[in-house]
Protein backbone atom coordinates (compact mmCIF):
# COMPACT_ATOMS: atom_id res chain seq x y z
CA UNK A 1 0.00 0.00 0.00
CA UNK A 2 1.34 3.32 -0.99
CA UNK A 3 2.34 5.89 1.58
CA UNK A 4 1.35 9.22 0.14
CA UNK A 5 4.31 11.40 0.80
CA UNK A 6 3.63 14.79 -0.65
CA UNK A 7 6.69 16.08 -2.42
CA UNK A 8 8.54 18.59 -0.27
CA UNK A 9 8.58 22.13 -1.39
CA UNK A 10 12.25 22.72 -1.95
CA UNK A 11 11.53 26.08 -3.47
CA UNK A 12 13.26 25.02 -6.63
CA UNK A 13 10.52 25.75 -9.10
CA UNK A 14 11.78 28.09 -11.72
CA UNK A 15 10.10 31.43 -11.57
CA UNK A 16 10.26 33.77 -14.52
CA UNK A 17 11.05 37.03 -12.83
CA UNK A 18 11.07 39.56 -15.62
CA UNK A 19 7.68 38.95 -17.23
CA UNK A 20 6.11 37.90 -13.95
CA UNK A 21 3.83 40.89 -13.46
CA UNK A 22 2.54 40.94 -17.01
CA UNK A 23 2.02 37.16 -16.92
CA UNK A 24 0.23 37.67 -13.58
CA UNK A 25 -2.09 40.24 -15.11
CA UNK A 26 -2.82 37.93 -18.02
CA UNK A 27 -3.76 35.00 -15.81
CA UNK A 28 -5.90 37.30 -13.64
CA UNK A 29 -7.78 38.50 -16.71
CA UNK A 30 -8.16 34.91 -17.88
CA UNK A 31 -9.42 33.81 -14.46
CA UNK A 32 -12.06 36.55 -14.46
CA UNK A 33 -13.11 35.56 -17.98
CA UNK A 34 -13.48 31.92 -16.97
CA UNK A 35 -15.52 32.99 -13.95
CA UNK A 36 -17.85 35.06 -16.14
CA UNK A 37 -18.27 32.20 -18.61
CA UNK A 38 -19.08 29.73 -15.84
CA UNK A 39 -21.59 31.98 -14.10
CA UNK A 40 -23.27 33.00 -17.37
CA UNK A 41 -23.41 29.39 -18.52
CA UNK A 42 -24.84 28.41 -15.16
CA UNK A 43 -27.47 31.16 -15.32
CA UNK A 44 -28.46 30.19 -18.87
CA UNK A 45 -28.57 26.49 -18.05
CA UNK A 46 -30.68 27.04 -14.92
CA UNK A 47 -33.20 29.45 -16.47
CA UNK A 48 -33.56 27.75 -19.87
CA UNK A 49 -35.35 24.80 -18.32
CA UNK A 50 -32.77 22.36 -19.72
CA UNK A 51 -31.98 21.29 -16.17
CA UNK A 52 -34.69 20.74 -13.60
CA UNK A 53 -34.96 23.59 -11.06
CA UNK A 54 -34.95 20.82 -8.44
CA UNK A 55 -31.30 20.19 -9.32
CA UNK A 56 -29.91 23.57 -10.24
CA UNK A 57 -30.77 27.05 -9.03
CA UNK A 58 -29.72 30.09 -11.05
CA UNK A 59 -26.71 31.98 -9.59
CA UNK A 60 -28.84 35.05 -8.94
CA UNK A 61 -31.13 33.04 -6.65
CA UNK A 62 -28.14 31.42 -4.96
CA UNK A 63 -26.67 34.80 -4.25
CA UNK A 64 -30.02 35.97 -2.86
CA UNK A 65 -30.24 32.86 -0.65
CA UNK A 66 -26.73 33.52 0.61
CA UNK A 67 -27.60 37.15 1.34
CA UNK A 68 -30.70 35.99 3.19
CA UNK A 69 -28.72 33.56 5.38
CA UNK A 70 -26.22 36.25 6.24
CA UNK A 71 -28.77 38.98 6.96
CA UNK A 72 -31.17 36.88 9.05
CA UNK A 73 -28.18 35.35 10.87
CA UNK A 74 -29.13 31.70 10.28
CA UNK A 75 -25.70 31.07 8.68
CA UNK A 76 -23.55 31.88 11.71
CA UNK A 77 -24.34 28.99 14.08
CA UNK A 78 -23.82 26.51 11.24
CA UNK A 79 -20.65 28.17 10.07
CA UNK A 80 -19.20 28.42 13.55
CA UNK A 81 -19.99 24.75 14.30
CA UNK A 82 -18.30 23.50 11.14
CA UNK A 83 -15.28 25.77 11.55
CA UNK A 84 -14.86 24.68 15.17
CA UNK A 85 -15.06 20.99 14.32
CA UNK A 86 -12.59 21.39 11.47
CA UNK A 87 -10.09 23.50 13.38
CA UNK A 88 -10.12 21.28 16.48
CA UNK A 89 -9.91 18.13 14.37
CA UNK A 90 -7.08 19.62 12.33
CA UNK A 91 -5.11 20.72 15.39
CA UNK A 92 -5.63 17.39 17.12
CA UNK A 93 -4.46 15.52 14.02
CA UNK A 94 -1.43 17.74 13.49
CA UNK A 95 -0.36 17.53 17.14
CA UNK A 96 -0.74 13.75 17.19
CA UNK A 97 0.97 13.32 13.83
CA UNK A 98 3.93 15.51 14.84
CA UNK A 99 4.43 13.62 18.10
CA UNK A 100 3.96 10.15 16.65
CA UNK A 101 5.87 10.99 13.46
CA UNK A 102 8.85 12.21 15.50
CA UNK A 103 8.72 9.11 17.68
CA UNK A 104 8.74 6.93 14.55
CA UNK A 105 11.57 8.92 13.05
CA UNK A 106 13.66 8.45 16.17
CA UNK A 107 12.80 4.88 17.08
CA UNK A 108 12.77 2.39 14.22
CA UNK A 109 11.66 -0.25 16.73
CA UNK A 110 8.50 1.65 17.66
CA UNK A 111 7.97 2.54 14.03
CA UNK A 112 8.23 -1.03 12.77
CA UNK A 113 5.89 -2.26 15.50
CA UNK A 114 3.19 0.39 15.20
CA UNK A 115 3.30 1.69 11.65
CA UNK A 116 1.77 -1.42 10.00
CA UNK A 117 -1.39 -0.92 12.08
CA UNK A 118 -1.65 2.69 11.03
CA UNK A 119 -1.15 1.63 7.42
CA UNK A 120 -3.90 -0.98 7.71
CA UNK A 121 -6.22 1.62 9.20
CA UNK A 122 -5.62 3.64 6.03
CA UNK A 123 -6.76 0.88 3.71
CA UNK A 124 -10.42 1.17 4.57
CA UNK A 125 -12.49 4.32 4.10
CA UNK A 126 -12.76 5.95 7.51
CA UNK A 127 -15.99 7.56 6.40
CA UNK A 128 -17.50 4.10 6.77
CA UNK A 129 -16.98 4.17 10.52
CA UNK A 130 -18.65 7.57 10.90
CA UNK A 131 -21.89 6.08 12.32
CA UNK A 132 -19.85 4.06 14.78
CA UNK A 133 -17.96 7.12 15.91
CA UNK A 134 -21.17 9.03 16.39
CA UNK A 135 -22.50 6.13 18.44
CA UNK A 136 -19.42 6.27 20.62
CA UNK A 137 -19.00 10.03 20.99
CA UNK A 138 -22.57 11.29 20.89
CA UNK A 139 -24.19 13.99 18.80
CA UNK A 140 -22.22 17.09 19.69
CA UNK A 141 -18.81 18.41 18.78
CA UNK A 142 -16.75 15.34 19.71
CA UNK A 143 -17.55 12.84 16.93
CA UNK A 144 -16.96 15.43 14.20
CA UNK A 145 -13.67 16.47 15.71
CA UNK A 146 -12.63 12.83 15.89
CA UNK A 147 -13.63 12.19 12.27
CA UNK A 148 -11.89 15.32 11.07
CA UNK A 149 -8.76 14.34 12.98
CA UNK A 150 -8.81 10.76 11.70
CA UNK A 151 -8.92 11.93 8.11
CA UNK A 152 -6.33 14.66 8.53
CA UNK A 153 -3.83 12.59 10.52
CA UNK A 154 -2.16 10.40 7.93
CA UNK A 155 -0.60 12.81 5.43
CA UNK A 156 0.94 14.85 8.25
CA UNK A 157 2.29 11.67 9.87
CA UNK A 158 4.00 10.33 6.74
CA UNK A 159 5.46 13.70 5.84
CA UNK A 160 6.71 14.40 9.37
CA UNK A 161 8.45 11.05 9.31
CA UNK A 162 9.89 11.62 5.86
CA UNK A 163 11.00 15.17 6.63
CA UNK A 164 12.83 14.19 9.80
CA UNK A 165 14.57 11.15 8.33
CA UNK A 166 15.25 12.15 4.75
CA UNK A 167 18.41 14.12 5.27
CA UNK A 168 21.41 13.17 3.19
CA UNK A 169 24.49 11.38 4.54
CA UNK A 170 26.47 14.45 3.57
CA UNK A 171 24.29 16.70 5.70
CA UNK A 172 24.58 14.35 8.66
CA UNK A 173 28.35 14.17 8.13
CA UNK A 174 28.56 17.95 8.01
CA UNK A 175 26.86 18.19 11.40
CA UNK A 176 29.00 15.40 12.83
CA UNK A 177 32.16 17.09 11.60
CA UNK A 178 30.99 20.24 13.42
CA UNK A 179 30.48 18.13 16.55
CA UNK A 180 26.81 19.06 16.73
CA UNK A 181 24.77 17.52 19.52
CA UNK A 182 21.68 15.44 18.70
CA UNK A 183 19.55 18.37 19.75
CA UNK A 184 21.45 20.77 17.47
CA UNK A 185 21.11 18.35 14.59
CA UNK A 186 17.37 18.27 15.22
CA UNK A 187 17.06 22.01 15.63
CA UNK A 188 19.29 23.12 12.75
CA UNK A 189 18.95 20.25 10.28
CA UNK A 190 16.03 17.90 10.74
CA UNK A 191 13.28 20.32 11.75
CA UNK A 192 13.98 22.92 9.03
CA UNK A 193 14.22 20.05 6.56
CA UNK A 194 10.93 18.60 7.82
CA UNK A 195 9.09 21.91 7.46
CA UNK A 196 9.41 21.71 3.68
CA UNK A 197 7.62 18.35 3.89
CA UNK A 198 5.08 19.22 6.59
CA UNK A 199 3.59 22.40 5.18
CA UNK A 200 2.32 20.87 1.93
CA UNK A 201 0.82 18.06 4.04
CA UNK A 202 -0.97 20.61 6.23
CA UNK A 203 -2.88 21.87 3.20
CA UNK A 204 -4.18 18.37 2.42
CA UNK A 205 -4.88 17.84 6.11
CA UNK A 206 -7.04 20.98 6.30
CA UNK A 207 -9.16 19.85 3.36
CA UNK A 208 -9.47 16.34 4.80
CA UNK A 209 -10.47 17.72 8.21
CA UNK A 210 -13.23 19.73 6.58
CA UNK A 211 -14.46 16.61 4.78
CA UNK A 212 -14.41 14.70 8.09
CA UNK A 213 -16.44 17.39 9.83
CA UNK A 214 -19.06 17.49 7.05
CA UNK A 215 -19.40 13.70 6.96
CA UNK A 216 -19.89 13.73 10.72
CA UNK A 217 -22.61 16.32 10.33
CA UNK A 218 -24.28 14.28 7.61
CA UNK A 219 -24.48 11.27 9.90
CA UNK A 220 -25.94 12.95 12.95
CA UNK A 221 -26.06 16.58 13.90
CA UNK A 222 -28.19 19.54 14.86
CA UNK A 223 -25.91 22.24 13.46
CA UNK A 224 -23.18 22.74 10.91
CA UNK A 225 -22.98 23.45 7.21
CA UNK A 226 -23.25 19.73 6.45
CA UNK A 227 -26.42 19.54 8.50
CA UNK A 228 -27.79 22.65 6.75
CA UNK A 229 -27.08 21.17 3.31
CA UNK A 230 -28.99 18.05 4.27
CA UNK A 231 -31.94 20.11 5.53
CA UNK A 232 -32.03 22.28 2.40
CA UNK A 233 -31.87 19.22 0.14
CA UNK A 234 -34.72 17.42 1.86
CA UNK A 235 -36.94 20.52 1.89
CA UNK A 236 -36.09 21.26 -1.75
CA UNK A 237 -34.41 24.62 -1.10
CA UNK A 238 -32.05 24.28 -4.03
CA UNK A 239 -30.71 27.84 -4.02
CA UNK A 240 -29.91 27.59 -0.31
CA UNK A 241 -28.10 24.29 -0.88
CA UNK A 242 -25.84 25.90 -3.42
CA UNK A 243 -25.34 28.88 -1.14
CA UNK A 244 -24.16 26.51 1.60
CA UNK A 245 -21.73 24.86 -0.83
CA UNK A 246 -20.29 28.25 -1.66
CA UNK A 247 -19.82 28.95 2.04
CA UNK A 248 -17.98 25.64 2.33
CA UNK A 249 -15.58 26.51 -0.45
CA UNK A 250 -14.95 29.89 1.17
CA UNK A 251 -14.12 28.09 4.41
CA UNK A 252 -11.72 25.81 2.55
CA UNK A 253 -10.04 28.73 0.80
CA UNK A 254 -9.67 30.61 4.07
CA UNK A 255 -7.86 27.67 5.69
CA UNK A 256 -5.62 27.44 2.69
CA UNK A 257 -4.81 31.15 2.86
CA UNK A 258 -4.10 31.06 6.58
CA UNK A 259 -1.77 28.08 6.17
CA UNK A 260 0.10 29.76 3.35
CA UNK A 261 0.50 32.85 5.51
CA UNK A 262 1.74 30.78 8.46
CA UNK A 263 4.22 29.00 6.24
CA UNK A 264 5.59 32.32 5.02
CA UNK A 265 6.01 33.58 8.57
CA UNK A 266 7.61 30.39 9.86
CA UNK A 267 9.92 29.67 6.96
CA UNK A 268 10.90 33.23 6.18
CA UNK A 269 12.78 34.01 9.35
CA UNK A 270 15.00 30.99 9.55
Amino acid at each position, binding site marked *: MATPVVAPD*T*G*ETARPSRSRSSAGTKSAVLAVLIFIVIVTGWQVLATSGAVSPLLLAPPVDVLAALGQMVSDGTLWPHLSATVQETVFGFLLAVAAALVIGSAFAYSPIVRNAVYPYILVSQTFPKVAIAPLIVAIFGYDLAPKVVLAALLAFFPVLTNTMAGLTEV*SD*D*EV*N*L*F*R*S*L*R*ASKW*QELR*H*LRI*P*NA*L*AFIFPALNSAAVLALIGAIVGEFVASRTGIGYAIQQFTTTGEVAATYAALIVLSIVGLTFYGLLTLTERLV*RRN*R
Partner: protein
Amino acid sequence: MATRTLANGSRRDTTEPSAITARTVSKVFEGKRQRVSALSEVDIDIEAGQFVSLIGPSGCGKSTLLKMIAGLLTPSSGTIAIDGDTVVEPLPQIGVAFQKPTLLRWRNVLDNICLPLDLDGGRPADGETRARELLAMMGLAGFEKHYPKELSGGMEQRVAIARSLITQPSLLLMDEPFGALDEFTREDLNDELLRVWQHEPKTVVFVTHSISEAVFLSDHVVVMSARPGRIHATVPVILPRPRERSLRNAPEFYDTIRHIRAVLDEARLGEAGGEH
Protein backbone atom coordinates in the same frame (compact mmCIF):
# COMPACT_ATOMS: atom_id res chain seq x y z
CA MET B 1 56.80 32.08 6.42
CA ALA B 2 54.31 30.78 8.90
CA THR B 3 54.73 33.47 11.49
CA ARG B 4 51.56 33.56 13.51
CA THR B 5 50.06 36.93 12.72
CA LEU B 6 46.44 36.50 13.57
CA ALA B 7 45.01 39.95 14.00
CA ASN B 8 42.38 39.59 16.68
CA GLY B 9 42.14 37.01 19.40
CA SER B 10 39.94 34.16 18.30
CA ARG B 11 39.16 31.22 20.52
CA ARG B 12 41.11 28.91 18.22
CA ASP B 13 44.22 30.86 17.47
CA THR B 14 46.27 28.98 20.00
CA THR B 15 45.80 25.65 18.22
CA GLU B 16 48.94 24.48 16.49
CA PRO B 17 48.77 22.67 13.16
CA SER B 18 48.18 18.96 13.54
CA ALA B 19 50.28 16.02 12.40
CA ILE B 20 48.53 13.02 10.86
CA THR B 21 49.65 9.42 10.78
CA ALA B 22 47.89 6.47 9.19
CA ARG B 23 49.12 2.96 9.91
CA THR B 24 48.05 0.02 7.71
CA VAL B 25 44.64 1.50 7.29
CA SER B 26 42.13 -0.53 5.30
CA LYS B 27 38.49 0.15 4.64
CA VAL B 28 35.95 -2.37 3.42
CA PHE B 29 32.35 -1.34 2.75
CA GLU B 30 29.96 -4.19 3.47
CA GLY B 31 27.16 -3.67 1.00
CA LYS B 32 23.99 -5.74 0.73
CA ARG B 33 25.11 -7.36 -2.49
CA GLN B 34 28.89 -7.07 -2.37
CA ARG B 35 31.77 -5.92 -0.27
CA VAL B 36 33.89 -3.11 -1.68
CA SER B 37 37.49 -2.90 -0.64
CA ALA B 38 37.96 0.86 -0.83
CA LEU B 39 41.39 1.18 0.77
CA SER B 40 44.08 -1.33 1.49
CA GLU B 41 46.95 -0.99 3.94
CA VAL B 42 47.49 2.72 3.63
CA ASP B 43 50.42 4.29 5.47
CA ILE B 44 50.78 8.06 5.57
CA ASP B 45 52.76 10.55 7.60
CA ILE B 46 51.78 14.16 7.28
CA GLU B 47 53.85 16.63 9.25
CA ALA B 48 52.23 19.47 11.10
CA GLY B 49 51.74 22.51 8.91
CA GLN B 50 52.16 20.68 5.62
CA PHE B 51 50.03 21.06 2.54
CA VAL B 52 49.45 17.59 1.11
CA SER B 53 47.41 16.67 -1.95
CA LEU B 54 45.83 13.30 -2.68
CA ILE B 55 45.55 12.47 -6.34
CA GLY B 56 44.43 9.30 -8.09
CA PRO B 57 41.80 7.74 -10.32
CA SER B 58 38.12 8.07 -9.49
CA GLY B 59 37.03 5.53 -6.91
CA CYS B 60 40.51 4.92 -5.47
CA GLY B 61 39.37 5.92 -1.99
CA LYS B 62 40.44 9.55 -1.66
CA SER B 63 37.15 10.69 -0.13
CA THR B 64 37.11 7.61 2.07
CA LEU B 65 40.58 8.38 3.42
CA LEU B 66 39.64 12.00 4.02
CA LYS B 67 36.48 11.00 5.90
CA MET B 68 38.48 8.66 8.08
CA ILE B 69 40.91 11.44 8.97
CA ALA B 70 37.87 13.59 9.74
CA GLY B 71 36.57 10.92 12.10
CA LEU B 72 33.43 10.40 10.03
CA LEU B 73 34.32 6.85 9.01
CA THR B 74 36.11 4.20 11.05
CA PRO B 75 38.88 2.16 9.44
CA SER B 76 38.09 -1.54 9.06
CA SER B 77 41.63 -2.17 10.28
CA GLY B 78 44.63 -0.06 11.16
CA THR B 79 44.62 3.29 12.91
CA ILE B 80 44.63 6.95 12.08
CA ALA B 81 46.04 9.34 14.63
CA ILE B 82 46.08 13.10 14.85
CA ASP B 83 48.91 14.46 17.00
CA GLY B 84 49.40 10.98 18.35
CA ASP B 85 45.82 10.38 19.44
CA THR B 86 43.77 7.79 17.58
CA VAL B 87 40.84 9.40 15.80
CA VAL B 88 37.52 8.05 17.02
CA GLU B 89 35.30 11.04 16.39
CA PRO B 90 35.60 14.40 14.59
CA LEU B 91 38.07 16.64 16.42
CA PRO B 92 37.28 20.28 17.18
CA GLN B 93 40.25 21.64 15.24
CA ILE B 94 39.18 20.26 11.87
CA GLY B 95 37.46 22.08 9.04
CA VAL B 96 35.93 19.97 6.28
CA ALA B 97 34.93 20.96 2.77
CA PHE B 98 33.02 18.00 1.34
CA GLN B 99 33.00 16.89 -2.27
CA LYS B 100 29.39 18.07 -2.49
CA PRO B 101 28.91 21.61 -1.14
CA THR B 102 26.12 20.52 1.26
CA LEU B 103 24.74 23.96 2.00
CA LEU B 104 21.54 24.17 4.03
CA ARG B 105 18.92 25.42 1.59
CA TRP B 106 16.93 27.31 4.25
CA ARG B 107 19.96 29.39 5.29
CA ASN B 108 21.28 32.21 3.19
CA VAL B 109 24.94 32.37 2.24
CA LEU B 110 26.03 34.34 5.30
CA ASP B 111 24.13 32.07 7.67
CA ASN B 112 25.53 29.00 5.96
CA ILE B 113 29.06 30.25 6.48
CA CYS B 114 28.25 31.00 10.13
CA LEU B 115 26.76 27.54 10.80
CA PRO B 116 29.93 26.22 12.49
CA LEU B 117 29.88 29.24 14.83
CA ASP B 118 26.17 28.81 15.58
CA LEU B 119 26.78 25.18 16.56
CA ASP B 120 29.72 26.15 18.76
CA GLY B 121 28.21 28.57 21.21
CA GLY B 122 27.04 31.30 18.84
CA ARG B 123 28.60 33.97 16.69
CA PRO B 124 31.35 36.00 18.32
CA ALA B 125 31.27 39.75 17.79
CA ASP B 126 33.55 39.57 14.77
CA GLY B 127 31.99 36.36 13.42
CA GLU B 128 29.93 37.93 10.66
CA THR B 129 32.70 40.29 9.68
CA ARG B 130 34.99 37.37 9.23
CA ALA B 131 32.31 35.52 7.24
CA ARG B 132 32.02 38.53 4.93
CA GLU B 133 35.79 38.69 4.51
CA LEU B 134 35.94 35.02 3.59
CA LEU B 135 33.09 35.47 1.16
CA ALA B 136 34.87 38.38 -0.46
CA MET B 137 38.03 36.32 -0.62
CA MET B 138 36.07 33.66 -2.49
CA GLY B 139 35.00 36.33 -4.98
CA LEU B 140 31.42 36.35 -3.77
CA ALA B 141 31.10 39.71 -2.02
CA GLY B 142 27.50 40.90 -2.16
CA PHE B 143 26.01 37.40 -2.16
CA GLU B 144 25.46 37.34 1.62
CA LYS B 145 21.68 37.28 1.42
CA HIS B 146 21.39 34.85 -1.48
CA TYR B 147 20.00 31.37 -0.94
CA PRO B 148 21.84 28.26 -2.18
CA LYS B 149 19.29 27.64 -4.93
CA GLU B 150 20.26 31.00 -6.40
CA LEU B 151 23.93 30.00 -6.75
CA SER B 152 25.79 28.06 -9.41
CA GLY B 153 27.60 24.84 -8.50
CA GLY B 154 30.96 26.58 -8.34
CA MET B 155 29.55 29.37 -6.18
CA GLU B 156 28.09 26.81 -3.79
CA GLN B 157 31.51 25.16 -3.53
CA ARG B 158 33.12 28.47 -2.67
CA VAL B 159 30.56 29.15 0.06
CA ALA B 160 31.27 25.69 1.46
CA ILE B 161 34.99 26.52 1.53
CA ALA B 162 34.30 29.78 3.36
CA ARG B 163 32.27 27.76 5.86
CA SER B 164 35.17 25.33 6.38
CA LEU B 165 37.50 28.26 7.12
CA ILE B 166 35.30 30.27 9.48
CA THR B 167 36.50 28.45 12.60
CA GLN B 168 40.17 28.93 11.63
CA PRO B 169 40.79 25.17 11.75
CA SER B 170 44.32 23.94 12.28
CA LEU B 171 43.56 20.90 10.14
CA LEU B 172 41.75 21.55 6.90
CA LEU B 173 40.34 18.62 4.91
CA MET B 174 39.22 19.54 1.42
CA ASP B 175 37.65 17.15 -1.08
CA GLU B 176 37.94 18.48 -4.64
CA PRO B 177 36.91 21.92 -3.40
CA PHE B 178 37.50 23.62 -6.75
CA GLY B 179 36.23 20.78 -8.89
CA ALA B 180 33.35 22.74 -10.41
CA LEU B 181 35.34 25.86 -11.31
CA ASP B 182 36.83 27.15 -14.52
CA GLU B 183 40.61 27.20 -14.78
CA PHE B 184 41.02 30.92 -14.03
CA THR B 185 38.72 31.09 -11.02
CA ARG B 186 40.40 27.96 -9.76
CA GLU B 187 43.83 29.57 -10.03
CA ASP B 188 42.61 32.70 -8.26
CA LEU B 189 41.23 30.61 -5.42
CA ASN B 190 44.43 28.54 -5.25
CA ASP B 191 46.28 31.80 -4.66
CA GLU B 192 43.79 32.82 -1.97
CA LEU B 193 43.98 29.44 -0.29
CA LEU B 194 47.77 29.66 -0.11
CA ARG B 195 47.46 33.12 1.38
CA VAL B 196 45.14 31.85 4.11
CA TRP B 197 47.46 28.93 4.72
CA GLN B 198 50.52 31.15 5.14
CA HIS B 199 48.58 33.58 7.29
CA GLU B 200 47.00 30.99 9.59
CA PRO B 201 49.34 28.01 9.75
CA LYS B 202 47.45 24.79 9.31
CA THR B 203 47.81 21.30 7.98
CA VAL B 204 45.86 20.83 4.76
CA VAL B 205 44.85 17.57 3.14
CA PHE B 206 43.58 18.39 -0.30
CA VAL B 207 41.94 15.97 -2.74
CA THR B 208 42.10 16.95 -6.39
CA HIS B 209 42.08 15.56 -9.92
CA SER B 210 44.17 18.43 -11.23
CA ILE B 211 47.88 17.69 -11.32
CA SER B 212 48.85 21.33 -11.81
CA GLU B 213 46.70 22.40 -8.87
CA ALA B 214 48.28 19.72 -6.68
CA VAL B 215 51.76 20.82 -7.69
CA PHE B 216 51.10 24.50 -7.24
CA LEU B 217 49.67 24.09 -3.75
CA SER B 218 51.45 21.20 -2.12
CA ASP B 219 54.53 20.22 -0.18
CA HIS B 220 53.81 16.58 -1.00
CA VAL B 221 51.60 14.94 -3.58
CA VAL B 222 50.32 11.51 -2.59
CA VAL B 223 49.62 9.44 -5.69
CA MET B 224 47.07 6.67 -5.23
CA SER B 225 46.12 3.66 -7.32
CA ALA B 226 42.74 1.98 -7.46
CA ARG B 227 41.07 -1.35 -6.75
CA PRO B 228 41.84 -1.63 -3.97
CA GLY B 229 42.92 1.90 -3.15
CA ARG B 230 46.58 2.05 -2.21
CA ILE B 231 49.23 4.67 -1.93
CA HIS B 232 51.45 4.30 -4.93
CA ALA B 233 54.01 6.98 -4.17
CA THR B 234 54.50 10.19 -2.24
CA VAL B 235 56.18 12.85 -4.34
CA PRO B 236 57.77 15.87 -2.66
CA VAL B 237 57.24 19.15 -4.47
CA ILE B 238 60.45 21.13 -4.26
CA LEU B 239 59.34 24.55 -5.37
CA PRO B 240 60.07 27.73 -3.41
CA ARG B 241 57.48 29.43 -1.24
CA PRO B 242 55.66 31.75 -1.13
CA ARG B 243 54.42 30.66 -4.52
CA GLU B 244 53.38 33.43 -6.85
CA ARG B 245 51.29 33.31 -9.99
CA SER B 246 54.45 33.50 -12.10
CA LEU B 247 55.45 30.06 -10.86
CA ARG B 248 52.78 28.64 -13.17
CA ASN B 249 54.98 29.59 -16.12
CA ALA B 250 58.24 28.34 -14.65
CA PRO B 251 59.99 25.34 -16.22
CA GLU B 252 60.50 23.65 -12.85
CA PHE B 253 56.73 23.80 -12.31
CA TYR B 254 56.24 21.93 -15.57
CA ASP B 255 58.97 19.47 -14.70
CA THR B 256 57.19 18.55 -11.50
CA ILE B 257 53.87 18.20 -13.33
CA ARG B 258 55.51 15.92 -15.87
CA HIS B 259 57.05 13.84 -13.13
CA ILE B 260 53.77 13.39 -11.28
CA ARG B 261 51.97 12.58 -14.50
CA ALA B 262 54.50 9.81 -15.07
CA VAL B 263 54.01 8.48 -11.56
CA LEU B 264 50.23 8.52 -12.01
CA ASP B 265 50.57 6.67 -15.27
CA GLU B 266 52.73 4.10 -13.59
CA ALA B 267 50.11 3.74 -10.86
CA ARG B 268 47.43 3.20 -13.47
CA LEU B 269 49.48 0.66 -15.44
CA GLY B 270 50.44 -1.22 -12.32
CA GLU B 271 46.77 -1.56 -11.66
CA ALA B 272 46.02 -2.77 -15.19
CA GLY B 273 48.94 -5.19 -14.92
CA GLY B 274 46.79 -7.27 -12.58
CA GLU B 275 47.30 -8.74 -9.11
CA HIS B 276 50.10 -11.00 -8.08
